[in-house]
């Protein structure tokens, strides 16, 4: 940290003429990641033939977006949101609905997965129309809900956000999982009933129920015809979007806005005195975070080699907790840390899944179950994570990397550890 301080002091002040590298860095990065993503789109399926391995890579990307977006509110703004899964769910369902609808209007049919023929290229072309719309819609819906949830709770004591986001995510999931009307009524029919003999409010609520019911309840949403959500986002989209999000997160952190946020986190009253409106900043960062969560969920719902069914069970509290783990283990406020945290958590989750299905474990598990215990490795993993997080908070509350950006020379432009 000492060298960082020296570097800061040598800069003399915050605003310094930006070097060519600073100015064009973003553009170079975007072009570079476009190229990498394009190459990956065509090479990845050939290099890695096992789709479950490709799935791990794609999931890492999605989780990086999850961690980066959660990092905005939990790390940079220092507020505690624990319902990120709720925003992911909003993004996922929205994107799945839109992709399904657009896919139908483009003629439907099954997507050719990896054979590079004419059909594949047509589908790839279509994805340029479909994927951006679906991702943006998912992110915007999540951001809207973020505003609705954040505005009342962030005006108040900071810890209300925690419980409100937790409740919000759970209720959202339960609403989708438990609403099954069991008839074939469509949303359109329900809308027509508004203002009919049953009055106004009853039918309006009923439209909501019919819509929720159309999402498939606990079994999940698998496209309009039940054949699965068309997975349009190949490696190109997943990698490119992840890179874009990383760039935005980096820029946010080192922008004036990011500095104001940090100042706010250090001392709310002092920041208020110099004209920073705490509520506005907190709500904005929460909405940005929700937007990113929605984007991640959307990506997750339509990524190739992923699950073609969007299920409420993918967005339980455990999902939110995993996201928190990614941010905290890496170091709250660190962009690089969030990405590394995402890699770590994704890999351990997938490893556990693999080990859990091994014969040895299965046998041990059933013999333990005879004694009334269970060998749920995922529960064991969660327990260990929780233990590690508590220990980390007690011993090293700033996380593994703190706010630093390992592997990068660029440092924070604000002084750290200044006396209050």
């Amino acid at each position, binding site marked *: 940290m000492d060298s960082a301080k020296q570097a800061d002091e040598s800069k003399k002040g915050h605003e310094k003429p930006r070097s060519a590298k600073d100015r064009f860095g973003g553009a170079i990065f975007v072009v570079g990641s476009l190229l990498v993503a394009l190459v990956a789109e065509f090479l990845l399926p050939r290099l890695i033939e096992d789709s479950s391995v490709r799935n791990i890579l794609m999931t890492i990307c999605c989780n990086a977006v999850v961690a980066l977006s959660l990092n905005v509110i939990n790390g940079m703004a220092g507020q505690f949101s624990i319902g990120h899964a709720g925003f992911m769910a909003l993004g996922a369902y929205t994107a799945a609905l839109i992709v399904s609808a657009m896919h139908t209007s483009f003629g439907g049919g099954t997507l050719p997965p990896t054979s590079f023929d004419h059909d594949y290229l047509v589908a790839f072309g279509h994805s340029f129309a479909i994927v951006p719309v679906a991702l943006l819609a998912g992110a915007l819906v999540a951001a809207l809900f973020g505003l609705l949830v954040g505005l009342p709770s962030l005006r108040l*004591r900071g*810890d209300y956000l925690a419980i*409100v986001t937790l409740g919000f995510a759970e209720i959202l999931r339960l609403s989708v999982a438990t609403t099954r009307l069991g008839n074939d009524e469509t949303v359109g029919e329900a809308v027509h009933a508004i203002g009919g003999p049953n009055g106004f409010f009853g039918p309006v609520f009923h439209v909501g129920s019919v819509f929720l019911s159309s999402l498939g309840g606990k079994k999940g949403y698998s496209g309009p015809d039940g054949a699965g959500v068309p997975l349009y986002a190949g490696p190109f989209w997943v990698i490119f979007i992840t890179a874009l999000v990383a760039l935005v997160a980096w820029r946010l952190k080192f922008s004036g806005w990011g500095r104001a946020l940090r100042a706010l986190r250090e001392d709310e009253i002092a920041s208020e005195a110099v004209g920073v409106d705490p509520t506005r900043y907190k709500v904005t960062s929460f909405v940005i975070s929700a937007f990113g969560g929605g984007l991640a969920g959307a990506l997750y719902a339509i990524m190739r080699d992923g699950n073609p069914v969007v299920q409420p069970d993918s967005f339980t509290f455990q999902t939110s907790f995993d996201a928190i783990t990614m941010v905290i283990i890496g170091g709250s406020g660190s962009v690089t840390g969030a990405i590394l945290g995402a890699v770590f958590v994704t890999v351990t989750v997938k490893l556990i899944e693999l080990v859990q299905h091994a014969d040895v474990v299965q046998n041990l598990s059933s013999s333990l179950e005879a004694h009334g215990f269970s060998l749920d490795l995922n529960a064991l993993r969660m327990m260990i994570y929780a233990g590690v997080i508590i220990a980390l908070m007690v011993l090293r509350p700033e996380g593994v990397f703190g706010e630093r950006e390992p592997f990068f020379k660029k440092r924070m432009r604000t002084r750290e550890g200044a006396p209050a």
Partner: protein
Amino acid sequence: MNGILAPLVTGIAQGSMIALIALGYSMVYGVLKLINFAHSEIFMMGSFFGLFALQHFAGLNPVLATALAMILAMFGTSLLGITVERFAYRPLRGRGKSSLLRITPLVTALGASVFLQNLAQLLFTARQRPYPRLFAQTRPLIFATAVVVMIALELVVKRTWFGKAMRALSTNEEAARLMGIRTSRVIGITFAIGSSLAALGAILYCLDQGDAYPTMGVGIGTRAFVAAVLGGIGSIPGAMLGGLLLGVLGELVKFSGFEGSVDIPVFIVLIAVLLVRPAGLLGSTRAEKV
């Protein structure tokens, strides 16, 4: 008239149980200014402790068995509550409140909650375990327990040295220490009382509604927290009022024929109350110290 009376009575019974759990949140928030996320897991553990005790006392008179189970479960959860406080919260105290450190207690609280829930998953498996049907009517038991607990708690808080120390600690920790109050001890006892109330609530809940399972704390815990916030977190009468309101509201929603989960209107009410009266119905309106 008869139609609406039934849900009202059910609602008050439900609300009394919610209130018992809400008290734990509110008391701990009062002394530590911390949302004790692990409280819902202590509730869950309480229902398991109670279940095991009831199975053990299966041959006894049901009232006696229930009373013994309650005492044992309360003892067990008290120990658990004190342990959680000792390992997850106490090491963080006295660290100051600047920068990132502000959310660390919330993180460890959440960690403790996840830890306990998954521990239960491993120890007790995920399956739902039915409670014995000991009473044809559980409501008299619920009402009686709730009334006794509320009166006892009111007496403890208003009349005893511990109660005064707890209230002093809630308003000003430094001043409380200057009175010679050993704050760690008061905090420990507060956790013990809150946790044992959760065990009481848990046993009543399970006798009334059925099963014990590792994730049961999530839904009921959240509802109890909402009750605590609704009434004014940190306020003991507030927790009681919030619990009762929530119980009645839930039953009225069911009565009205709402198709979705009861939690949806409950959540909307929470948001509405936070917007209009951030400190809750009975909470102190004094500005929080930052």
